[in-house]
């Protein structure tokens, strides 16, 4: 066991929370935002259909998938940057049911 500097630990958490808030803002814009503006957005077309329909049927889902993968990749990178070893993480929990 090694003590982690308080500022380092806080920096880790803050970095992750900031990114997450960013992802959630994009999430809200492509779903709630686009629905709220459905009428004006119906004026132009994308992939053959009116834009508001495209966003509901394809655009928002694709954005969600991209956000989840960006989060997974970026978080892995942050973990690495802070010296987290996934092998060690696995060793701590795999196959070990919780005892009570």
């Amino acid at each position: 066991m090694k003590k982690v500097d308080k500022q380092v630990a806080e920096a880790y958490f803050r970095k992750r929370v900031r990114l997450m808030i960013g992802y959630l803002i994009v999430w809200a814009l492509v779903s709630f935002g686009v629905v709220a503006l459905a009428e004006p957005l119906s004026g132009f077309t994308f992939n053959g259909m009116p834009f508001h329909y495209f966003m509901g049927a394809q655009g928002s889902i694709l954005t969600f998938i991209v956000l989840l993968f960006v989060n997974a990749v970026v978080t892995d990178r942050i973990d690495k940057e802070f010296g987290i070893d996934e092998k060690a993480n696995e060793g701590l929990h795999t196959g070990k049911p919780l005892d009570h």
Partner: protein
Amino acid sequence: MDTQFFVSLAIILASFALYIGIAVFNRARRTSDFYVASRGVPPVWNGMAIAGDWMSAASFIGMAGTVMILGYDGLAYIMGWTGGYLLLTFLLAPQLRKYGRYTVPEFIGDRFESHTARVIAAVGTMVVSFVYIIGQLSGSGVVIGRLFEIETVIGTMIGVVVIAVYATFGGMRGITWTQVAQYLVLITAYLIPIIFMSLQITNNPLPWMTYGEIVSKLGELDAELGLTQYFAPFQTGTKGQFLALMFCLMAGTAALPHVIVRFYTVSTMKAARWSGAWALVFIGLLYLSAPAYAAFSRFILMTQVAGQPLDSLPAWTQAWINTGQLQLADQNGDGILQWQEIVISNDIVVMATPEIANLGVFVIGLVAAGAMAAALSTAGGLLIAISSSFAHDIYSRLINPQASDKKKLLVARITIALATVVAGVVALNPPGVITQIVAWAFSLAAGTFFPVLFLGVWWKRANAKGAIAGMLTGLGVTLGYILLSTNFDFSLFGIQDTGAGVFGLPISLLVTYLVSILTAPPSQKVQDEVVDLRYPEQMSYKDGEVWMKEPGR
């Protein structure tokens, strides 16, 4: 008994044999196998299992039909049921995984150090899962009944027996691999018809690229007929209802106990994040396809069926007319079937379209098998959630803490068998339309569990009294709104019963917050545990300091 019957029967039996074989092969031997598959499922496969677990009869059978009938307004389901995975994967799943319990009520009971909270959460889980499973069982009844040309009631009974057998013997480990197989069956069954339809209509095998033009053409056809255009927004409900429904489906997704439990089957927080991402890829494949399914079905109905003389309609129409789900009546008596004279139930669109488009006996049988896979896989996951709530959280934590593993497993299995039978009996005469019942389950999960899980994970000051008050008000407000809205035509801001969670959730969040700050804070141990959830497994928070475990020690 024609060729179609035998082909469909053969495909369904072969797929059932596959699921049961997998379940028997992976029989649960230990408690941790039964509930969480020993926590070693790799993320990609777990993502596929989540997708199989997640996509129910409502997704497979109901969604394309809902979009076809509601047009743009049906897309609330598509966005809601996918967007929820972001809330789940960002806000809850990895943290709950680090906390390391078997079930949602167990997390709530231990996090708030309260048996009362545990019991409320266990009962809430059983209520939500039970409401949800009724839809699955009656969905499987419709498919089996239509296919075997027997009554829906007997079809439901057959479905109940099959589900009970594999859920009882397999447990979570069996279910993981069964759900992977079920996902593969259901996605193949969904994609093949739309790829063929895309080829038929547009000469391009990629429906996602081509159906946009069809959507625009549908708008033109509607305009010619003097109808509201297919893609016009908010024709069947208000914008408020659309937003509220989408919100409830998202928050409900994040808080559904049977989905959360699938994130306990991976090894680490990182694996939980990747599972969520893969899950949405596999789910997205079907959800991106449903609007295409809807557009093609409607296009074929409008251009190839409508406008035909009534006395020369193809053979497929009669079977569906007999089920009462399709009505073709020549209202103006000109001998020609007009589009406005077709009344089609949204639950048969996916099943009937391959027949309408003449895709052959094999494809039609495959679609039936896919629909069964969707209903069975979700029902299996829900039964695990119900049985673990009772056997694990109530029986072995409160009633008989000294019970042996064997005894606990037996109680879990008996609970599954009992729950299946009781839900089966209710499903014989369901209390509403399938999609409506499913939306209630989501609203209830959003109102009851989302606030308490969210604050429990992110706010160390949340305490037991707050959690109990929050869950009870959330459940009460949501359930109350559903009952008032369905029985007395009550509504606020134009929001219907399916959007009830939009009131339950914020009220519950506020109550949890207020009661928590007005009462004593939770113990230091619990507050430390909550701070600990901010960091990966290797880091742990103790006595105000963060410690890092070094590899190999």
